[in-house]
């Protein structure tokens, strides 16, 4: 009964820990494993125009929310000297809005945004409104009707009609009707107009082809056709575009990409670069109102917590080593503190430094025991001795060009002093053997704790998913109720197993 309540409590803790972690992973996109990389596109739109001296106003349509790309709104900027900049959200698409009371001469405006490639990112598409009958003038109307009369019987759906239209428009030589229509219309608007005439929802959109490092790019026309409940994208020259990962839809719902009032000879060009960033760095930018993660702390404190959050894992290692294995250590959690120090040094340099300092201090301690000091005074003396040894070691190793010798300064001095004192008492009271066993046990546990605490996955999870410590807690609680034999007891009680009943 009692046992079950423990198991239940542990199960609850594990469920809560994992549940919160998974929720946060889904909500904020903090990756579950370290160093998951994402491609980030940095896109710059450059608008140039010749200002006439009147109040200038420039509107640039901004890309809509779309599948496969995540806009990092925090990284968006459009500041240009002398111009007021706002984002206009009133229309069907967001627009960048620059204004200046009077501008003369050549003007250049920049708009910059960051996009994260995220194949999993999906938005629900906005369905088209009523299809408006496309209007064709005079002879074009006849030609359009004939083209449709020719193709409609061969098609069964919006998609198949669009497929055939694009194919027909790109077959050389063009049919008479199509070649007439092409004289008065650009390919993309022509195809969407013909589709509309057939009662199919279709629209001309402008998209940017993403290629790393390209400059002076322009938007290109594409056709979107509404089929069932999704927009299909057509390249008017090549047909259906299946993979949209390299195409960024820029303008879908507004009549123009950009408008300039009070200027002439305006043009917009785009340049782009891609870079790979860790998903972690990006997730931080997506601020969630419920996120109470450690990322909200100043950078210096974050660095501190990166260490502190691995402590529970080290404590778990100590519990395992003591309760399951049965290793004797000098000082219960002293090994974790050593492991923590080792995390800041290198393993080997740290261990060598530790053994040297403790060994030298032990020698000096044997002299101290002849001085007959009170305990507190003796520990205080040892603190001074340890600090002197650490200083000596740091200076000497630095002079010898061994930078790693400086690592010893990361060890907590008072802990070192206590360790020396305990070891020395152990040595005097129980002999060198026991002192060595406990010293080696402490080092073994410290190295084990270090190895676990330094795993990139452990460090990542401990810091980014603090709730997972509930699972560590559950494990410690369960181990706290373990009544079985320790590994070393199997050896210790061997004579008992050997004897017959």
């Amino acid at each position, binding site marked *: 009964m009692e046992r079950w309540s423990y198991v239940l409590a542990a199960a609850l803790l594990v469920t809560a820990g994992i549940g919160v972690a998974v929720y946060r992973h889904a909500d904020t996109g903090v990756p579950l494993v370290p160093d998951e990389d994402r491609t980030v596109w940095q896109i710059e739109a450059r608008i140039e125009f010749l200002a006439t001296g009147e109040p200038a106003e420039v509107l640039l349509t901004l890309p809509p929310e779309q599948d496969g790309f995540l806009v990092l709104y925090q990284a968006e900027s459009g500041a240009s000297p002398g111009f007021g900049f706002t984002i206009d959200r009133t229309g069907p698409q967001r627009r960048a809005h620059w204004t200046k009371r009077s501008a003369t001469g050549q003007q250049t405006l920049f708009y910059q945004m960051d996009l994260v490639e995220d194949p999993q990112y999906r938005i629900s598409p906005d369905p088209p409104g009523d299809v408006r009958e496309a209007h064709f003038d005079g002879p074009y109307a006849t030609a359009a009707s004939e083209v449709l009369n020719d193709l409609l019987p061969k098609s069964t759906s919006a998609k198949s009609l669009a497929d055939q239209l694009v194919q027909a428009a790109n077959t050389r030589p063009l049919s008479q009707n199509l070649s007439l229509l092409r004289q008065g219309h650009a390919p993309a608007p022509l195809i969407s107009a013909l589709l509309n005439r057939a009662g199919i929802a279709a629209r001309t959109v402008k998209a940017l082809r993403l290629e790393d490092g390209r400059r002076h790019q322009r938007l290109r026309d594409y056709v979107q056709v509404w089929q069932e409940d999704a927009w299909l994208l057509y390249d008017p020259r090549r047909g259906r575009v299946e993979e949209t990962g390299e195409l960024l839809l820029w303008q879908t719902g507004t009549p123009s990409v950009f408008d300039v009032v009070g200027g002439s000879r305006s043009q917009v060009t785009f340049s782009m670069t891609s870079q790979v960033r860790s998903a972690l760095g990006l997730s931080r930018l997506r601020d969630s109102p419920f996120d109470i993660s450690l990322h909200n702390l100043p950078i210096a404190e974050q660095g501190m917590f990166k260490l502190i959050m691995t402590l529970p894992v080290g404590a778990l290692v100590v519990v395992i080593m003591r309760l399951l294995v049965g290793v004797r250590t000098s000082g219960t959690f002293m090994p974790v503190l050593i492991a923590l120090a080792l995390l800041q040094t290198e393993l080997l340099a740290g261990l060598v430094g530790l053994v040297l300092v403790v060994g030298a201090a032990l020698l000096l301690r044997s002299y101290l025991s002849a001085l007959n000091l009170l305990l507190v005074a003796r520990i205080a003396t040892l603190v001074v001795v340890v600090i002197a040894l650490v200083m000596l070691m740091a200076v000497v190793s630095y002079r010898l060009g061994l930078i790693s010798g400086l690592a010893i300064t990361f060890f907590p001095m008072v802990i070192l002093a206590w360790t020396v004192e305990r070891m020395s008492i152990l040595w005097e009271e129980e002999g060198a053997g026991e002192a060595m066993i406990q010293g080696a046990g402490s080092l073994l546990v410290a190295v084990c704790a270090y190895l676990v605490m330094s795993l990139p996955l452990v460090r990542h999870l401990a810091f980014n998913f603090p709730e997972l410590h509930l699972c560590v807690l559950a494990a410690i609680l369960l181990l706290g109720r373990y*009544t079985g034999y320790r590994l070393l007891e199997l050896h210790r009680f061997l004579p*008992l197993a050997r004897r017959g*009943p």
Partner: protein
Amino acid sequence: MSWLAAPSELRERGVVGMNRRNLEFVARHNRRTAYPLVDNKLLTKRLAAKAGIPMPELILDLSHQFEVEAVPARLNELDEFVIKPAQGSGGRGILVIAGREGGRFVKSNGERVNIQQIKRLLTNIISGLYSLGGRTDSAIVESLAKTHEMFASMSVDGVPDIRVIVFQGYPVMAMLRLGTHASDGKANLHQGAIGVGLDIRTGTSVGAVQHNRAITRHPDNGAHLDDIGIPDWRGLLRLASRCFDVTGLGYLGCDIVIDANAGPLLLEMNARPGLAIQIANGSGLDSRLEAVLAREAFAPGVDERVAFALDGLAGAVG
């Protein structure tokens, strides 16, 4: 496997492991508030005196550093005495002086110490070096029990004592602990002392171990260890059993010496007695503890409890 025993094998033999001892016996049957009664030997002495349990005579207790300066005068009047920390553990900080030689004191192992060394020991004890958690402590000077003649041939560097595990007032397992040169006269098995398992029914030897290995003779003096019989076994078990009534500790280790003149004397008690006693007895504690648990409802007096033990704990021994 040659290095490790199978857990199932140990379970079959009823061996109690450290984790199980801590959780199911120490934590469940020992109230924390009773711990100071056994952890602090001064309290133990007061308690024992009130209940009429014989212990070595308290000569001095010092809890302040300034008292140490006045000690040499007192010690010079004594030929034999024992210094120990009131809250020590594991036999640490104990000094047994068995005689005098000029101005110096002779330890039980024959080493000489001077008054300066004794004062340093007292200083260390008072400043908490040997106490749990480093709390400031008191030093105790008490009379040295006289080695019973039957142990004279066996004892090396110290007085042998008998450890009895008392569960709910029932003596369940016992062993005689003999100091060796290897253990520096100390009675702790992991330091190299000899553990002689004693039949709880008769107080006779059932086997001896040192360093986890079975032996039949004392390695230092060659004394036979396989035909030991403790005198006044019933009296000794009665003494151990009464410790339960005095402390209320359900799982208790009692260390008892047999004084040549006064008979069984309680040396100290331990609320977390070690498990090496199982190895010395070649038998696990489990079945004996279970036998007691099965009787727990009776709450009988000392004589009945001792009788139950002398009777072999309802067949659990043997």
